[in-house]
């Protein structure tokens, strides 16, 4: 098996796994989220900074070590957005669109500037910059926004087709994506398709901060691609297949900081002058150039930023107060607003996995510093009392993985009854829709002249929104207001059990 086949098989496998992570349903998501995200750079970094979870820290170290040994294999094997671009490029070559790549000089200023911005944003807790650049987050949003609705839509259509034959299945819920979030995803999709088709892996080499950071490491990797200058005929076949555009055939030079280790050049070279093997990087002092100085500077800045990022106190101090006065309800396990918005990478995995589809990407509801982070959308759905999937799948730990018994007591908000529009108070007729669905017995009913008036007992309310969804009035007479810092609800006291009557306690008589 050649290295190319190896790469194609492995990246194809990971591509499918990452597809299933987001589109495979809540159970598969929960399983895969324990395996895949530790080996995704940004989620692993965010998780390790906040709470050095063993697996995530190990994953992060693993990625760094892997890069130091083999170069940016991460970008060709592990990154789902990279695999997506490879598929687009392969497809465009198949149909004869843009068959050739070419060398392009590096844009170091832009790429290290973006890296520095991303790292700085991470320090400041300004997550938007991270989530708008991170390839994992974009992959997640693309699948959640486009693939998942397509899959659930066709699944539900297929169910309809089975009905005449008495084949019945439960339909699936399609996530609700707010129009601005969807527009942003569509714009990015257009950009990534355009870039892949016309410029190969330009996104990975100029925009992606993970690519830029790993590129810094790959400069010094053990295994390197190198062309034998004397044997090279400058036929440029290698440059034509190089998606990264990092092979300069005129000088027989290969820029390891931009090489994504796809191995295409090995097969293309007619005289096999390109080799991939352990080599000591020959650093020559005459190579010093302004560009390189920028590289070092950028690397230094990035490194410093990452070091600083580990000091939570500093992050707290530097955080830009950007949230709006009335923020949305955050998922159970997110603790408080500041904690949540500074840790979430907006990958939408919780949105994809949420079985009631109550989680939806926000747009600027949390302020400009936390674009696209998920919120509970109580106009569409409610948070299921018996579910803790969002915490189980969250790759960054922004939503803590709470045990179900614990999650049932976390108050993420509280229901406010608006007596001036509630039908029971206004019309004096029984309704009780809110009480029917309340899972914690927070809804109490006071019987006045055979009319049952609802009241909220805030001791037990966890703000799940079931009442808001059930309320039949327009606008709703009961709405959940968020707790910026989540609280702990009281446990509903167990009702005194009646003494179990003997099986024939009431004898053989009937009350009629």
């Amino acid at each position: 098996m050649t290295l190319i086949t190896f790469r194609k098989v492995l990246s194809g496998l990971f591509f499918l796994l990452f597809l299933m992570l987001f589109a495979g349903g809540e159970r598969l998501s929960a399983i895969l989220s324990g395996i895949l995200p530790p080996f995704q750079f940004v989620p692993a970094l965010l998780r390790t900074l906040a709470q050095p979870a063993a697996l995530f820290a190990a994953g992060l170290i693993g990625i760094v070590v892997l890069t130091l040994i083999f170069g940016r294999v991460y970008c060709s094997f592990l990154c789902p957005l990279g695999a997506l671009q490879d598929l687009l490029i392969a497809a465009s070559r198949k149909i004869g669109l843009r068959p050739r790549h070419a060398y392009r000089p590096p844009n170091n200023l832009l790429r290290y500037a973006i890296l520095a911005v991303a790292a700085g944003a991470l320090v400041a807790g300004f997550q938007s910059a991270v989530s708008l650049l991170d390839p994992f987050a974009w992959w997640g949003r693309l699948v959640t926004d486009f693939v998942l609705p397509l899959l659930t839509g066709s699944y539900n259509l297929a169910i309809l087709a089975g009905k005449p034959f008495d084949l019945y299945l439960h339909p699936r819920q399609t996530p609700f994506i707010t129009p601005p979030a969807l527009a942003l995803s569509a714009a990015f999709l257009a950009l990534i398709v355009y870039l892949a088709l016309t410029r190969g892996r330009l996104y990975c080499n100029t925009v992606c901060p993970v690519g830029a950071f790993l590129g810094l490491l790959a400069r010094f990797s053990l295994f390197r691609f190198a062309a034998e200058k004397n044997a090279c005929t400058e036929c440029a076949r290698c440059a034509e297949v190089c998606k990264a555009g990092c092979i300069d055939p005129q000088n027989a030079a290969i820029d390891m900081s931009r090489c994504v280790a796809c191995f295409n050049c090995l097969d293309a070279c007619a005289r096999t002058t390109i080799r991939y093997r352990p080599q000591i990087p020959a650093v020559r002092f005459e190579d010093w150039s302004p560009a390189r100085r920028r590289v070092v500077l950028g690397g230094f800045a990035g490194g410093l930023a990452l070091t600083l990022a580990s000091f939570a106190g500093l992050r707290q101090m530097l955080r830009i107060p950007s949230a709006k006065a009335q923020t949305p309800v955050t998922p159970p396990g997110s603790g408080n607003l500041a904690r949540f918005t500074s840790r979430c990478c907006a990958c939408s995995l919780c949105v994809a996995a949420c079985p009631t589809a109550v989680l939806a990407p926000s747009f600027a509801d949390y302020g400009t510093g936390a674009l696209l982070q998920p919120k509970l959308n109580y106009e569409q759905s409610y948070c299921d009392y018996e579910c803790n999937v969002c915490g189980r799948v969250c790759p960054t730990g922004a939503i803590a993985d709470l045990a179900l018994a614990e999650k049932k007591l976390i108050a993420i908000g509280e229901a406010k009854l608006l007596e001036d529009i509630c039908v029971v108070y206004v019309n004096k007729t029984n309704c009780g829709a809110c009480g029917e669905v309340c899972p914690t017995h927070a809804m109490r009913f006071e019987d006045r002249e055979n009319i049952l008036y609802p009241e909220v007992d805030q001791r037990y309310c966890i703000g799940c929104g079931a009442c808001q969804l059930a309320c039949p009035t327009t606008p709703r007479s009961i709405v959940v207001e968020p707790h910026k810092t989540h609280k702990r609800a009281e446990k509903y006291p167990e009702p005194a059990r009646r003494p179990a009557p003997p099986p024939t306690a009431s004898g053989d008589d009937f009350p009629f």
Partner: protein
Amino acid sequence: MKEPQKFNRREVLGKGLSLGLLVGGAVILGKTDFLLGQGPSASLPDLVAVKNGEPDALFKKAIDLLGGMRRFVKKGQTVVVKPNIGFPRVPEVGATTHPLLVKTIIESCYAAGAGKVYVFDNVVTPTAGNARNCYRLSGIDEAARAARGIVVPVDDFSYREVRIPGGKKLKTADVHGLILDCDVFINVPVLKHHSSAHLSIAMKNLMGIVKNRMEYHLVGLDQCIADFCLYRKPDLNVVDAYRVLMSQGPAGPSNPHFADVQIKKTLLVSQDIVAVDAAAARIFGKDPEDIGYIKIGHAQKSGNMNLKDLKIVTYAM
């Protein structure tokens, strides 16, 4: 080759004429019961109550005393069994119909010659995940399938709007197509406490076949529950009072350990939906006079709540 003719014209005319005379005469004389192959109506009760047995034995005894399942289900007919699967609760909570009862009814329908038996309920909070949980946790999904019942999940597309003749507050309802298209509709509610309607029994259970149930809450729960019975009453009501949730209804606590349940091991069957609700209210320990929709249903002549006027057969095992 042509199919041999089974009837000649004269035979058809003759048979049709005599059958028409027979049926027409019977209807005029008000004695339709013998057409159904039953004895004189005087011997059949209006309501049967059975107690002190397991759900399957209770039902078999009760339907026997009511004249047998063949009275309600004919060969090849399509039946819908509508239990209460409204909440994601295990059977021990008493918020949903006993799965063994549902299974026994389906078996009984097939034994009577039913072509297809569907099982359906429009759960409260009908999101896809919740509906799946309700069907699964209640044990009804499994029990119904075991008896070859066709379990139909909730979707948005199967409802058709119907007009409620004489409805005071409920003028139209979006009713599930299964109910509209079936031959026999068997209502299998569970008797339980209800926070805003006092009790949930047979009439209340019909909110699970309409899509616009929230409209009931909005314009007046009791009146709407009673109004729907003006459109269609079930062909048979089987009230499950085996495990009765006495408080915290209609959902009950999610932990069955905390459920305020009384084991009454009782079952009621009747064609009269108002009568069966009145009798069940008595079983619960409430006066039917205090239940709004029962009183309205009686006043709107959907049934008879005065149990003294009815022929009731009771049986204790």
